[in-house]
């Protein structure tokens, strides 16, 4: 079942934020219901995407989600599917959608990582000092995404796309990913997905 798009929680969180006008979800925008249904068709009706290549966005951080939508639209993050979808989204729509999905519960996945791969992945991630930004447990915050419990195929692909610069919306990530072998990246994805 779909959630009621007018959840008062959203309005409340919009109302309590303060500061620079440009970065604040503007007004108490309604979440466009038809859009939500479109999103959940791929990102999952209960937060778990039917296709593991599609990332989990339920419970992801608001500002991160908003920036991704903005960056798909601006072409800084190349992806045919998502670029088509954001095409006719306004700034207000993007903020409302990001708010909507950030306030959902992150779903449980059934993925369990295999010990050797996870250990190798952990070593590689420590070398990159990844927890400095993604925090202990890879929970993320604000502009930095949660990675724990994300799907393996998506994590792998997006790290590889940083490396090959298909994904150009976080240059520091690209510089870091070039320093890893594809195998390291695969192991990191397994480690993170299994946390």
């Amino acid at each position, binding site marked *: 079942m779909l959630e009621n798009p007018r959840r008062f929680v959203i309005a409340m969180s919009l109302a309590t934020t303060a500061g620079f006008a440009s*970065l604040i*979800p503007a007004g108490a925008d309604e979440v466009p219901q038809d859009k939500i249904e479109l999103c959940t068709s791929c990102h999952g009706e209960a937060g778990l995407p039917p296709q593991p290549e599609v990332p989990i966005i339920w419970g992801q951080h608001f500002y991160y989600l908003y920036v991704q939508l903005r960056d798909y639209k601006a072409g800084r993050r190349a992806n045919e599917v998502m670029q088509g979808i954001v095409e006719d989204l306004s700034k207000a729509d993007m903020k409302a959608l990001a708010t909507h999905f950030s306030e959902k519960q992150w779903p449980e996945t059934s993925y369990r990582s295999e010990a050797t791969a996870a250990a190798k992945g952990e*070593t590689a991630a420590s070398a990159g*000092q990844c927890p*400095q930004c993604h925090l202990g447990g890879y929970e993320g915050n604000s502009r930095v995404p949660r990675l724990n419990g994300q799907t393996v195929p998506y994590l792998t692909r997006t790290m590889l796309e940083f490396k090959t610069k298909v994904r150009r*919306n976080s*240059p520091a990530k690209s*510089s870091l990913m070039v*320093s890893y072998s594809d195998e390291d990246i695969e192991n990191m994805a397994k480690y993170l997905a299994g946390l």
Partner: protein
Amino acid sequence: MRKKSVTGLATSVAFAALLSFTGSAVAEEVSGGTTYGDMSLVTQDMLTRAGGDGNNFLHTNGNYAQTRYYPARQINTSNVNKLRPAWIFQTEVVETMETTPIVVNGVMYVTTAFNHVYALDAKTGKQIWHFKHKMGPITTYCCGPNNRGVAIYGDRIFMGTLDAKLLALDTKTGKLLWEKQIANPELGYSETMAPSVVNGKVLIGTNGGEYGVRGFVKAFDWKSGDLLWTFHSTAENSVGVWATHDATGRDMLRDIEAEKAALAKLGDPYKTLGGGVWQNPAVDLDKNRIYFVAGNPSPDLDGSLRPGDNLYTNSLISVDLETGKYICHFQYIAHDVWDLDAVSPPILTKVKDNDGNTVDGVLHAGKTGHVYVHKADDCSLIRYSEAMVPQENMWVLPTKEGARMLPGANGGVEWSPMAIDASLGLTYAINLHQPMTYHVESTPYPEGKLWLGGAFKVIPGEQQWGNVTAVDYHTGKIRWKVKTEQPMIGGILATAGGLVFTGEGNGQFKAYDSETGSELWRFQAGAGVNAPPSSYTVDGKQYIVVAAGGNTQLNYKRGNNIIAFTLAD
């Protein structure tokens, strides 16, 4: 003996406090507010004299000179082995802790990650109030959701937040009195440092050297929160003198011709040049001057986009307290491409110059692993210490594949404040040894996103460790050095009891003999002790207090404890 007089002072103040009101009914009135009634007001005089105050701990670094030297000696070399926890307070937030507890007349103020503040009874650890900042949606930090504590003045405490605000809270109730947006968090500005208060001004810098901010120190009016002045730590003409060598005379391998060409093409890069100021200034009230250090240029590893010396990044800077006007600076590393920024807070003390005269001096510990000794008057360098950690391959330029150089980008000495014992002429620094490779890749300014211009990578196979080092600042020679299992981050406290206290990532909190470095006591805190300790006296009993919450940057075991120690009866 001096020991007695300090204890005596503590007792008499506490006694006076008891006389100033009667019974517990008064305490009830402020709904569990301070046990010492009106004495919670902090005057400028108290702040000025903090260096000799054996009861309170009023500044993040102990006093305006930032010596982190505590004048009480009830806990000393002969009895420190009887140090026991008096109480442990558990905060609501289990994340990285870098807070320095501030103590005023028996009330302690501590902060946690994500900007919570607690007021605690310093004698019992009982919570008086708890404030939780309503965080905006955009926070920025490179190295953990840290907060290093509050500043106090009058009936107020002040805190900077991860969403780049400055807050004033009522000391009695924790109620928010005002908040000001310091800078735009969308562009990478944020606050982790404790503010400083002096002569009615609340001073605060900014983080953001990894995001292409333009660094600054701002002064706000303590009462209204109005902005009084701003000093920008990147100069509008940031080019400088095209220095080819660092402060210690080593060639930094700059391609000056290429930089000059880039300058002609790109113009002065000062608007996105970084230079965050993220630790407290030292204050010289006699001369009305403050001294602080500015951090690395943005982007960290890629110099091609920021030709010139990048003034005043990686510098000691002095400005006028009243106006924020520039007085002098000294740059340690011009055109840095290793993120070896100046961050550990400067200390004011008398030092010997090279002719043997005693002059007003400034000490700063660098990520390079040197302690730098300056003349306060004109910021000039008198000497630098022997290296406290291995240095190799300095200054190899970052490459695409990664070039190995020691120290790694975390130091040497990170943000961790030093402490001094002026009677011994020693300064105490905690260090990291963390071999890294430096990778460069040029990318344009990403408008508020992480902007490193490359990557730093810890070399997995290589051993890491840390040390506690005592340096004679009159000569620059290392007096003693104790190696630790892990790289050190947090801070250190020296006391008149002949002790220095500092904690480690593995949970050990230790006391050393400040003269010899012998370990005299240790306690296992169960989580990384990576915060600067402080000390205070209540009802005649001296306490040492420290936060044990681990560290995000070095990924040390997290916790949520504030632990106060005192001597067993």
